[in-house]
Every structure is written in C-alpha cells, then in structure tokens.
C-alpha cells in the first residue's frame, strides 16, 4: 500500500492511497505511529484517497487516537468520504477523532 507524506509547515500529513484493510491497516498504523511520535502529535491523517476501511483499519485509527489521548489530543482526520464517515458514525466512534473538511483546515487547527 502506498502511503504518501506531505509537509505543511511543521505539520505532517499522511495519506493512505487506498482502502485501509487487513495488512495495509497494520502497515499504516506502524508508519503513522512513528510519525506521530516524531512530530510530537503534529500530524494529520488525510483520508481523501481512502474510499472505505474495515474493522482493522478502524482499529488502527482508533489505536492512534488513543495514543494521542494520553497527551490530551485526538487524531485529526481530513477528507473523510461519505462511506468512512458513515462507518465512524455507525460504530459510534466519530467522537474519537477530530474531523476536518480538507487538509488546509486541519493544518490550521494547529495554529
């Protein structure tokens, strides 16, 4: 699975290119976890190119958000498509993340 990284000032955006499922989810979690640690939490997950995710993908996002919650933060998501948004709402996990319309708004939240 391709995982793209973008630098927006001091903020890193990480963007999985495809569905977050199975082994891809584990790989994504590993990469994102390292990035969160390296940037002290200044990281945004851009899901623009993620059409859907399975339980493992959901778990990887949740795990990242829980890691951040120790320091009073939540994982910032942007570009969430309708399918992923519905998954988050149906599983009652939408409140476990901060959601933004696009990457610019998400990056501005660090100001």
């Amino acid at each position: 699975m391709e995982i793209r990284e973008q630098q927006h000032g001091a903020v890193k955006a990480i963007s999985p290119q495809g569905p977050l499922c199975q082994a891809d989810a584990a790989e994504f979690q590993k990469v994102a976890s390292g990035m969160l640690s390296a940037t002290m939490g200044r990281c945004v997950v851009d899901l623009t190119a993620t059409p859907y995710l399975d339980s493992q993908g959901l778990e990887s996002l949740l795990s990242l958000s829980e890691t951040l919650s120790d320091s009073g933060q939540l994982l910032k998501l942007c570009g969430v498509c309708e399918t992923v948004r519905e998954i988050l709402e149906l599983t009652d996990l939408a409140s476990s993340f901060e959601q933004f319309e696009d990457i610019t708004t998400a990056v501005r939240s660090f100001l």
Partner: protein
Amino acid sequence: MRRMLRQFFPRQTSMISGVLVMNTLIVACAMAALWIVVGEVRREEATRAADRKAIVVAEMLRPDLERAFAEKDLAGARLAIAKAAHAGALSGCRVSLGDGAVVADLDASAVTAKGIPDEFPPLTAEPDSHHSFAIDIPGKGRVLLAIEVAAATARSEWLEYGFGGTCLGAIVLLGVVSVRAQKRATPVTLVQSALSSVQAGEKELAALELADSFGGIAEAWNGMLRELATHRARARFDSVLTRRTEPGERDEVVGKMVDSLWHGVVAVDEEMRIRYCNGAAAVFLSGTRDGLIGTPLLDRISELQAKEKLAALAAAKGRGKIVVETRIGEGDGSAVLRISGKPVSGGGGAMLLIEDVTQQRVADRSRNAFVEQATHELRTPLTNVRLYVEALVEKPDADVSTRSQHLNIINQEVRRLERIVGDMLSVSEIEAGTLKLAIHDIRLPALFSDLEAEFAAPARSKNITLRFDLPPKLPTIVGDRDKLVLALTNVIGNAIKYTPEGGTVKVGVRADDALVVDVADSGIGIAADDADRIFDRFYRAKDPRVEKIVGTGLGLALAREVMRLHGGDVTVQSVPDRGSTFSIRMPLKAPLSMAA
C-alpha cells in the same frame, strides 16, 4: 503475639494442625486450671466431711467413754473406740490424758497408760472441736478424744488423679490428631485454606506462608508471598516518596483532568526538578512521566537564555509570570515550545505551562516572508508604471510610437500587477482557510480540450511542440473545475515559459486509481537545491535564465495548495538542462451525478 506464634507455627501447622496445637494448648491450660480448682474444692469438701464425721463419731463415743472411764472399764473404752472406728471407717482414734498418756488407741501398740487413774491430770492442749474433743468424766476430770478420718480424703485424691490423667490423655490425643492432620495436609489444601483466609480478611503475609517441607508448591507459594511483600513495601515507599504530588484520591481525579489538557503542565521544585508532569508535557519533553519525575527540567532545554530564566523562576527570584520560547530537538522532530511559568506562592518551586507553538512560528515566518516578497513584487511594476506615466506627463509632445510604447508597457505592468494581486488573494485565502472548493462533476475530455486550445498559441509562438497524450476514454471526476484548471494552467504555462524555442512539452494523462497529469518539458531544468523550494511562495530558482523571465513565484505554490485541497499533490522530477516533469495527482471520487 500472633506474629510470634507464626514464627513457630508456619502454615502447615497453623491452618489445620496449627489450630489443633492451639486447641491442645488451650484445653491443656483449661484442664490444668480445672484440675487445680476441682482439687481444691474436693479437698475442702473432704475436710468438711471429715470434720462432720469426726463430730458424729465423737458424739457417739461420748456416752460410752463416760461410762467406761467412770467405771474404770479400760477394756470397755477400748472396745467402744474399736467399734466406732469400724463403724465410721476411721483411720485413727485415740483417748489420751492431760499428761499425754494414751489410754486407748486403735493401734494397741500406741497405748502408754497402764490403767485408768482415779483422777485425771488437767488437759494441756485445748481441743479444736474438729478432730479433737474433750470428754468430761464426772468426779475425775477430762480426757482428750482424737479422731482421724481418712476415707473421704482418699477418694478426693483419686478424683484429682483422674482429672490429671484425663488432661494428659486429652493432650496426647490432640497431639496425635495434630500429627495425623499434618500428615494428611497437602500443599494444595493448605494453599486453599490460605486463600480462604485472605478472603476472610487476612492481610498478614507471614500468616499465609507454608513450610518449605511441603515441596515445590509450597516454595512457589512462599516465593510469591515474598514477592508480594516486596511489592507492598515498594508501594509504601513510593507512596511516601510521592506523597506530596499524589496525596490522595482527590488529587488523582485532578491529575486525570490535567492529563486531558493538550498543553503540558509541569510542577518543579526549587532546584527545577520535575515533581509532576501531565501526559502532554511528557510528550513535549520526550520522556515518560515516571521517567521524568525527579529529573532536572533544565537538562532537557539546550538554550542558555531559557535555562537562566527558568532557573531564576524556580528559585523564586522572579516574582511574576515569565514566558520563554525554546527549541528542542533537531531536524524534522524539532519543536518550538513556549513555556509560561509562575512561582508557587508560599513555597518553593513553580508551575509551568508548555505549549507547542512550532506551527505558529512557521506560519509567522511564512507570513512575514509573504509580506516582504509581496511588497517587493508589487513595487517593481508600480515603479515601472510610475516612471512611464511620468515620462508621458513630462513629454506631452512625444511622438505617437513612443507614447504607444509607453502605454503598452504601462498596460503590461498593470496586467502584471493584476495577476500578482489575484495570486496573492488566492494565497491569502488559502492562508486564512477561507478558500473553499466548489465541488462539481468535471468532464476531463472537455477540460483538456480547452487547455490544449488555450496553450496552442503560446506554444506556437515559441515554436514549441505541445502534445497532449490522452487515453481514449477519460472518466468524469469530482472536484473544483476552476481550481483544477488554475493548477494545470500554472504548471503547463510554466513548462512553456521555461522551455527554450524549438523544445517540446508533453502532457500525459492517466486516470486509473487517481488522476495523474504528467507535464514533461525539455526546458532548462531545475537544480537539486531549488527543487525542494520551488513550491514555496515567491521562490524563484537561482538561475540567470529564470531571472530573465517574468514571474511572481506564486504559480507553483498555488498549484500545490489547490491540489492538496483536493487530497492530491504536485511533485517534480528534473534534470538540469534536460528538462523537468511535474506530476499533478488527484484521487478519484465517484461523480456526484452517479452518487445522486
């Protein structure tokens, strides 16, 4: 007491046979006490019974002895004594005179008087009315009758022996039961009984230990208890050590509340050692909370000025609030932290609030650079406009061609100003977060057809071969058409602008899992040092050939921002003097018309 007992009776005797041993001791003590008490009571009763019997026997003997002594019938007196002794089961019975001469006795060998005198010497010892009685013989005086009663006393002693024997028997029996119980006890049952004791509230670990003689299970159990004892001791130690920072449940709740803050909160003592820090502070200081407690905060700060300010604050040299900014870490992992501190009133140390202002500082720098560059970019065309307008004003009689040339230049500079201002407005909108995408369906064939038509003339004017390689079928995608056109126009326009005459510009389009537009030119290329920065606002490559070409340095920055808003990006690969390839990538989404 209990602990002392446990030292002598570990669990293998304490829980089963231990109880028996205790019971044995208790029963033995109780029976011994009972033995003593009953013995005493029996002894007293026997004494009283003997006294009563002696009185009765004495009263029975009195008339017979009075008659026998009055008649000097010694044999009759002795016979009466023998009969009374037999009837009363006496152990001894004696009649003696005042001078001690024994007149009659059950033991004939004890008689010392030869006969009964006419007058009796007076009694030297007074009778006690329990075992000795005075009997008056009319006309002769008094004799002393002594009676010994032994039968009841003997019965009492036997009873005592019985009690003693019973006690000993009980002790022996309990001992035997204890030993048998000990032999029957298994480590598992002992562990079960120990766990039952714990459930019942037993907290003393020494009371739960088993004897090592019970084998591996007992040793493992005891090892576990020792480990638990160590943990308890350590917990007590830690509790004492951190008493000032975690004094109670209430503070724990407050601690959790502070942990929910995304700002770091740190409490330090007079020597700037960390006494408390929340989760966010631990992240900012690149450590764990437990690892940070007790360590000097200043060790984690490298900038001298910040160190000095914080040290003065902790030592209460500064009374008011201080704010310092310091950079920690290096490279991509570095961060700018703003530390606000205030001394704790009434005690040493201080409270610190740590904020991560890295992104703010980056934004500040970017904004300042933007203003500086914008001023510079605006000044150049404005200066040109002013100069040519002044020339026209000063030379009202200039010929038509000169006037026309000046007006053309003024027109170009004004259009340049217009472009700069337009780009700056777009950048400002992005910067302010007010630039929003107007999402619609985009028909790609029509879009690229328009672009091909738009750039055909500029390419032709430079004799550049412009080729669009489009797949036979392009999908309809979702996005902001105007913004996508803006990005493509900037990239394709740059390719034509920086490609020398006679060159080629190829626009390749793919639309598999994402829309990818590769714009490849045979232009001047980009040096590696510049490649990372050409997307910065107002940045222009340090190449003399670039400097000759008019540009604002905002085009590529805008293109990238716009594509990032779509979830995509713009990247570049370039070889100096051979050309560059810009790739515009945008993830595909289902068309809105299909979704509806």
